[in-house]
């Protein structure tokens, strides 16, 4: 039987988890070229909400954990095909071909759109984990120091209990359908910006007529058949593998960056006072488990 047993109720565990959750941030940017278009993103996110469940099989399960995208900016650049004049046949040949044609002259050019989707919320639908105690030796601790000297220098050894995920699943980023309107307006603005200010309205109207419905044009250039919101979700989540990066970052953070609880070793029993040094007991063989009611930490003294 262990010398020490500490328990935290599921409610207390949830409060401990909330502290861990609130300290998580993730930021990344990247860019790439994908044939007919190039794309980039810049994201920063934090976690919120979520429900914690302790299970009798010694696992912790976190569900419906919100990903709040503080920054979610996407950039997509592509070549606008524009409008061509000429290109017709002047003198057809008798065999349905063309003996003489006029070369085409085309108006077009590169445009970039930068939809800003900051403020969106998506979800980590499931994190399944076990508790993992890790003994931490402060790398700043001088090997010659006693435990007491290390404490005075703020470099005590520690037992840290981490939530060690075995499974993290992030839902696809749910881009709202209203983004289609945003994209349409951005493309329209980008086309107008492509022209010098002196270009008359009729020329822009002609180009717009030649381009046809903007979203259909964007779909055909970028080469997708689904909705624009699905395209962006797929671009970020799969093409750039942002979902995988977040899953890895979350798993890494829970498993090794921020413990749900930590104990100083040796553990202080009585503080130093009146010229006496503090009383501390060494903790060995620390173990942590959960059941449906509580988290239990056991350890030996020695």
């Amino acid at each position, binding site marked *: 039987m262990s010398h020490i047993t500490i328990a935290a109720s599921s409610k207390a565990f949830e409060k401990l988890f909330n502290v861990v959750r609130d300290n998580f941030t993730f930021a990344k940017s990247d860019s790439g070229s994908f044939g007919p278009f190039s794309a980039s993103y810049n994201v920063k996110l934090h976690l919120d909400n979520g429900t914690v469940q302790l299970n009798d099989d010694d696992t912790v399960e976190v569900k419906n954990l919100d990903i709040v995208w503080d920054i979610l900016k996407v950039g997509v650049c592509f070549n606008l095909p*524009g*409008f061509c004049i*000429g290109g017709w046949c002047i*003198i057809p040949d008798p065999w349905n071909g063309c003996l003489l044609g006029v*070369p085409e002259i085309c108006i077009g050019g590169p445009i970039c759109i930068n939809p800003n989707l900051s403020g969106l919320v998506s979800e980590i639908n499931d994190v399944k984990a076990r508790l993992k105690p890790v003994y931490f030796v402060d790398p700043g601790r001088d090997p010659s120091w006693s435990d007491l000297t290390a404490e005075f220098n703020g470099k005590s050894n520690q037992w840290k209990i981490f939530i060690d995920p075995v499974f993290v699943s992030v839902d696809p980023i749910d881009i709202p359908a209203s983004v289609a309107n945003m994209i349409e307006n951005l493309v329209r603005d980008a086309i*107008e910006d492509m022209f010098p200010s002196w270009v008359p309205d009729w020329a*822009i*109207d002609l180009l717009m007529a030649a381009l046809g419905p903007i979203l259909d044009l964007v779909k055909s250039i970028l080469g997708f058949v689904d909705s624009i919101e699905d395209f962006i979700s797929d671009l970020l989540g799969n093409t750039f593998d942002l979902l995988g990066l977040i899953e890895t970052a979350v798993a890494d953070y829970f498993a090794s960056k921020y413990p749900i609880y930590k104990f100083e070793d040796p553990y202080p029993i009585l503080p130093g006072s009146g010229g006496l040094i503090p009383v501390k007991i060494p903790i060995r063989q620390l173990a942590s488990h959960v059941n449906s009611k509580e988290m239990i930490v056991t350890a030996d003294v020695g």
Partner: protein
Amino acid sequence: MTMKPTFDPNLFLQIGLDSASLTMMGSIVHTFTEPGSYRGALHRGPEVRANFYITADKTSPVAQATIDLTALDAAAHPADGDKGECCCPKTGDGPAGGNRFTLNPRGYTLFHVSGGVGGYWVSVRKIDAAQTDRGYDSRALSPGDIFSATIIRPGTYSMTNVSTNASGEIVVSYPVIGEKAYRPPNPIRIDCGPQSFEPAKIALQPGQGMLFQAKVPSHIVIKLLKPDDGPPKPSGITGRRGWKKPEL
């Protein structure tokens, strides 16, 4: 991804056409039916900008010689920066381009302007022609020539054959943003007869071509009479965004 803009402001600045002064919106087709070697000169106004050579060879399988006047000019005056962005160094039909073109006498020579301000005309004369033979001058279209013209600016235009005083009217409709991307319909053919155009009234869509077929010596001039700026914009929308001082 490397992307290059293809935007020539002259497309929007040059309203109207003149077969004696070619721009991006107008091309001329001519046939050199007599076998032999021809020497041509590219002119802009009174100035000779470049020379070129055409060989009409019965044994040639080539049915079309496309002569880009912008490229010819640029090749002859590489220091000039006024040729738009679409000049390609290869102009002729030889392995290295250049200013020599060969085609069958039954084929067609197309003179066109690929970019820049244009304003070109050409004169072509057989190398061994008699001194009295003035050769071909594109300012006066010969019977059989075709003047290919495009108008993209909506409005009402007059068309005049300066050589015959024939006249007519062209109405170019305003573009409409529809369910599908707009593509100009096939070009309309217009006969330039001794006294009239046939048809004399033409309804065009923007960017739709016109093929003026000269039955008699012709010089086609198209001028904008009344622009069509489309339906009025809803109040507050000018079509162009601009900075506006915020109201306090």
